């Protein structure tokens, strides 16, 4: 069934979009990541203008995250206090990121910066995660949560210490705020939720219990993507509500199934799977940067889309 997207100015197969949303939503629920790192390239691939893909994606991530959080909330797997501290940094980061995005666009090469940051961040994080989770699976236990308990680094010497009873942590409030800030930056620049960076950062830097990570990161992502979606719609008019609702319809259903399957997976198994998926995307983008393009010339249409 073909449907015309008013803002993207494109006719697409509604079923294809539903399936796309469902598939990415499933992963979102499974791993506690937004799935933006998959959805944004996929949307551009089917012909949606990059600016509309990024703006619409931010909007649909809000809905997908709400749906994802509900499932985690019922299992009491959300640390609201920690999430709010991360959000304080996250909102600052998102606002700064939107400003940097505009600057990069004016200078040109925005596509290159996006591709390079995908390769750099996705590649590094997923390789580390794969390495760690494979090691943990081989030893048959989770190293991450255990080693942190008796590991004191300079990170624990930072000021503004705060208790997070739900996560059984006593750490500097600066740590989660900084993590939120950097992920907020990436939300705006890369058009992603930032879950794939938040999840490992919360596990390895904060030393949070794995069970709480997915729910808490989704909780934070609702607000950062909300800010991004608002700014994109107001300043660029690049949120296609038709596309967002179609993606959501597939996405929320997929996310529910994902959360259920995720509950059956062990922490290191979920991390290894997520690492593999993310690594595949990073490798694909790296290859695209390295191999000779079919046509060395490209055109930019009026309207900056």
């Amino acid at each position, binding site marked *: 069934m*073909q*449907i*015309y997207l*008013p*803002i993207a*100015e*494109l*006719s697409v197969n509604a079923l294809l979009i539903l399936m796309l949303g469902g598939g990415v939503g499933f992963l979102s629920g499974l791993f506690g990541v937004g799935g933006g790192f998959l959805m944004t390239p996929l949307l551009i691939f089917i*012909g949606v203008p990059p600016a509309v893909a990024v703006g619409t994606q931010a*909007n*649909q991530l*809000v*809905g*997908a*995250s*709400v*749906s*994802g959080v*509900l*499932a985690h909330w*019922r299992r009491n797997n959300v640390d609201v206090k920690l999430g709010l501290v991360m959000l304080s940094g996250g909102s600052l980061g998102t606002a700064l990121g939107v400003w940097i995005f505009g600057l990069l666009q004016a200078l*040109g*090469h925005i*596509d*290159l910066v996006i591709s390079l940051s995908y390769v750099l961040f996705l590649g590094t994080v997923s390789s580390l995660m794969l390495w760690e989770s494979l090691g943990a699976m081989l030893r048959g236990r989770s190293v991450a949560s255990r080693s942190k308990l008796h590991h004191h680094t300079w990170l624990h010497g930072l000021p503004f210490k705060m208790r997070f009873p739900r996560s059984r942590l006593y750490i500097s409030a600066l740590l989660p705020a900084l993590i939120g800030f950097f992920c907020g930056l990436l939300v705006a620049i890369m058009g992603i939720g930032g879950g794939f960076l938040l999840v490992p950062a919360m596990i390895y830097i904060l030393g949070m219990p794995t069970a709480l990570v997915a729910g808490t990161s989704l909780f934070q992502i609702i607000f950062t993507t*909300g800010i991004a*979606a*608002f700014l*994109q*719609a*107001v*300043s660029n*008019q690049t*949120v296609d*509500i*038709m596309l*967002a*609702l179609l993606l*959501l*319809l597939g996405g*929320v*259903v997929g*996310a*529910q199934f994902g959360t259920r399957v995720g509950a059956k997976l062990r922490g290191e198994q979920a991390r290894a799977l997520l690492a593999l998926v993310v690594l595949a995307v990073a490798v694909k983008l790296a290859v695209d*940067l*390295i191999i*000779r*393009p079919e*046509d*060395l*010339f*490209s*055109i*930019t*249409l*009026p*309207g900056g889309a």
Partner: protein
Amino acid sequence: MRGRHLLALPAGLLAGFMLLLALRADAWGQSLVADLSSHLIAITTGFTGTDVVLFGAVDGEGDVAVVVQGPEGEVTVRHKDRVAGIWINTDEIAFARVPAFYTVALSAPLDGVVPPAVLQRHEIGLDYIRLAPTQKIDKAEKLAEYRAALIRNKQRMGLYTTEAGEVSFLGQRLFRTRIHFPANVPTGTYTASVFLIRDGDVVSAQTTPLLVSKIGFSANVTEFAQRQSVFYAVLSIMLAVTAGWLAGIIFRKS
């Protein structure tokens, strides 16, 4: 769907139109008359592209060329080069007033029959579209390369075509052609120009406007998003939150 409707116009009715045009052509001493089956292409929610029929009459011998071109805008052509192992945009040329859509239909091949200067003047054929860079480019070779790249990219998007429609004659005087507009056709004002070519020169021409516009729901959404962007932003986020919330509640019960 819409296209098929138009084509299903009773042949008799169309022939009647054409006859009327032919009579009018004679009566008014015009050598060329033409019109479109529709002057408005409505982009609705179910839009998947459409066909428009252009028909007309000429007063005697000659070839007919039909050129349809769309709204103009600036287009930047970028060229990639390998820098430190990766492909990066290194150079660009911006072209002013590039038609977003261009298609041509001919009753007979014009190469070798009509001098290039004539084709250039009327922009008949992809090789003769007027594409001027916004800044002066000294190297003609480079300009030609970028120009070709622009046309090639547009062809790949299905927005520049040549082979699509042929102008067919019904008898000596009546002609018709079908112009296809793909699903990704840009909105705006188009012109359909018809040229009567005799002895290697254009002896008569007629230009008809054609509007491509979003209609109904699509148009409302676009207008809302642009005029009330803050309200649109809040509403779209609320819709997203509600959809997520509803899904959560539905799945809890099942």
